[in-house]
């Protein structure tokens, strides 16, 4: 009997939340089984469904997830034991002795945290980055005519390893900080790591945010079901009608950087930024919508990032859970180190209140952005992408006092609509440039594309042959434009704090179903799927 399917899983057919297999087979079956299961057993069903999903997308590589869960459970319990011993040891001691004993125990706990970091980051380094680093070492050796060539391994990576590794690490650090109690329940910890809607693309959740919600799941409520399905539909519109429709154009231009003039490259860079946003935020709508059906509230990952007035604000609204993770587990721990605090104190005395903290802050920011770049992928273009944002954010902070003075001198109202629109457009242009390098096939290709915008800026190729050459037609671009206007209108309403689903729920049933049928019909008619379209994998799943 051939059991190879046990190792392979179902492959890529399941990675997209908008694939037919997932939407019309996996999810409905999961919901039905969950709904008919007695309340006490629902959490176990959810866990079984999550593991089944992970096996379907990653096959035997599910072992990595199990290894991660086992390791954080053991390490969490070990930290808990040390904390208990510490409390007992310092209980009767006088205050002056307490500190020394406490320090001893903290040292031991830090060693355990370090072991957790070593396991998870070590695994990521081997699976995701070893090929990149060793490949670069070989290039360097060849440049110095060294006859040695190192073997460059290639490993199969489980889907979502970059996401669940960060969740696992946050759990260990939170236990160490006393923010959460070490969990003795392996099933609950495993469900926290593996909850199936979030395993492929996040959001990156903290144990305190979701573990008990997931463990206390109840029956599916009508309101949660309708709200969740509506959100999935909205995400589906973003992904199938906009993101996937733009894919051929983006692919063509970025794969052939020398074939197009600056005008087409600008068009492709804008289209890629739109595609990435629609793909990732659309997938997040599906993830949060699915979780909502089960009654789980996951943290939001997007808050209308293209309304940001600075690059720094953009990163507070784009991939929020990743930014928050880096802030809590890298930025503040780095700036809280004793030497960094001393550096801040002395720098403030010499450079003043604004520039003083920028010294330590800049170092921490550098650590955050090098990690952010590498997290997205093992490639120089990702490192470049990180460094690009590091420079933008740091220089934005440096010039703040000067720009305030300039605005005052020119009598420009910084909170006026005109200036806000200028800031939003400026931020969007800077983001698009960053995304151009992010999407390019290497830094060299990115430079080539970016350079052509200036050296070959013309629109001569905008003739009747351009669109067929790019694999799209005027219909594709018109549909994308109209759908983007819908998303823009919804974003403005949401920005004002209005929840459209709540508003819709208050209207009569005829109106509600008219709106929903129109949305379904819109996706069915204008979605880029079926014959003539190549399915596009979720873009963030590869990170």
């Amino acid at each position, binding site marked *: 009997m051939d059991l190879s399917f046990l190792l392979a899983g179902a492959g890529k057919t399941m990675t997209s939340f908008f694939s037919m297999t997932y939407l019309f087979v996996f999810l409905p079956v999961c919901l039905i089984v969950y709904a008919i299961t007695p309340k006490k057993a629902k959490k176990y069903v959810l866990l079984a469904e999550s593991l089944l999903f992970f096996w379907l997308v990653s096959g035997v590589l599910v072992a990595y997830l199990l290894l991660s869960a086992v390791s954080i459970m053991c390490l969490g319990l070990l930290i808990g034991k040390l904390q208990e011993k510490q409390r007992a040891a310092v209980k009767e001691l006088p205050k002056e002795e307490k500190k020394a004993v406490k320090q001893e125990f903290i040292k031991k706990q830090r060693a355990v945290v370090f072991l957790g970091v070593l396991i998870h980051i070590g695994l990521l380094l081997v699976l995701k980055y070893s090929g990149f680093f060793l490949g670069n070492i070989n290039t360097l050796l060849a440049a110095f005519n060294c006859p040695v060539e190192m073997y460059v391994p290639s490993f199969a990576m489980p889907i979502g390893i970059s996401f669940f590794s960060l969740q696992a690490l946050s759990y260990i650090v939170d236990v160490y900080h*006393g923010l959460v109690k070490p969990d003795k329940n392996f099933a609950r910890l495993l469900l926290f790591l593996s909850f199936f809607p979030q395993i492929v693309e996040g959001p990156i959740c903290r144990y305190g945010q979701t573990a008990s919600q997931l463990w206390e799941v109840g029956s599916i409520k009508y309101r949660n079901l309708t709200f969740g399905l509506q959100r999935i539909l909205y995400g589906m519109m973003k992904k199938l009608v906009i993101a996937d429709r733009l894919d051929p154009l983006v692919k063509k231009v970025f794969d052939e950087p020398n074939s197009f003039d600056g005008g087409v490259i600008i068009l492709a860079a804008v289209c890629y930024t739109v595609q990435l946003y629609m793909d990732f935020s659309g997938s997040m709508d599906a993830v949060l919508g699915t979780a909502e059906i089960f009654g789980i509230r996951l943290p939001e990952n997007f808050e209308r990032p293209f309304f940001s007035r600075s690059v720094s604000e953009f990163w507070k609204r784009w991939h929020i859970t990743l930014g928050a993770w880096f802030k809590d587990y890298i930025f*503040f721990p780095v*700036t*809280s180190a004793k030497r960094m605090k001393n550096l801040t104190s002395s720098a403030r005395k010499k450079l003043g209140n604004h520039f*003083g903290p920028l010294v*330590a*802050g800049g170092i921490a920011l550098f650590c955050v952005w090098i990690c952010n770049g590498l997290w997205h992928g093992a490639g120089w273009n990702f490192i470049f992408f990180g460094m690009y944002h590091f420079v933008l954010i740091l220089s934005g902070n440096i010039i703040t006092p000067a720009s305030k003075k300039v605005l005052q001198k020119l009598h420009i109202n910084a909170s006026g609509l005109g200036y806000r629109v200028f800031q939003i457009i400026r931020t969007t242009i800077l983001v698009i440039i960053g995304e151009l390098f992010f999407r390019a096939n290497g830094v060299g290709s990115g430079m080539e594309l970016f350079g052509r915008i200036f050296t070959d800026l013309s629109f001569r190729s905008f003739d009747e042959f351009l669109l067929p050459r790019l694999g799209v037609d005027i219909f594709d671009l018109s549909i994308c434009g109209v759908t983007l206007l819908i998303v823009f209108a919804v974003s403005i309403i949401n920005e004002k704090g209005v929840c459209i689903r709540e508003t819709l729920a208050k209207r009569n049933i005829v109106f509600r179903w008219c709106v929903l049928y129109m949305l379904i019909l819109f996706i069915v008619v204008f979605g880029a799927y079926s014959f003539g379209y190549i399915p596009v994998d979720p873009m963030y799943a590869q990170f």
Partner: protein
Amino acid sequence: MERLIEILEDIQPDVDYENCTDLIDGHYLSSLDIISLIAELEDEYDITVPAVEIVPDNFNSAEKIMRMIERLQED
């Protein structure tokens, strides 16, 4: 409390620290202001503010910052 408000005003003036209750959530204090503030608080009150304490809830108002200081002094 007066001394704390002086420190806050030195770092970021033009904020009504007596009444403001969303210093972080309302974006009155940035991450860099927090770094400055912590360095200053540690010198002034002889405390150590660990990274785990750097959460919006501890810094959203002068009163909450004071409460955190008192708690850390007791530890």
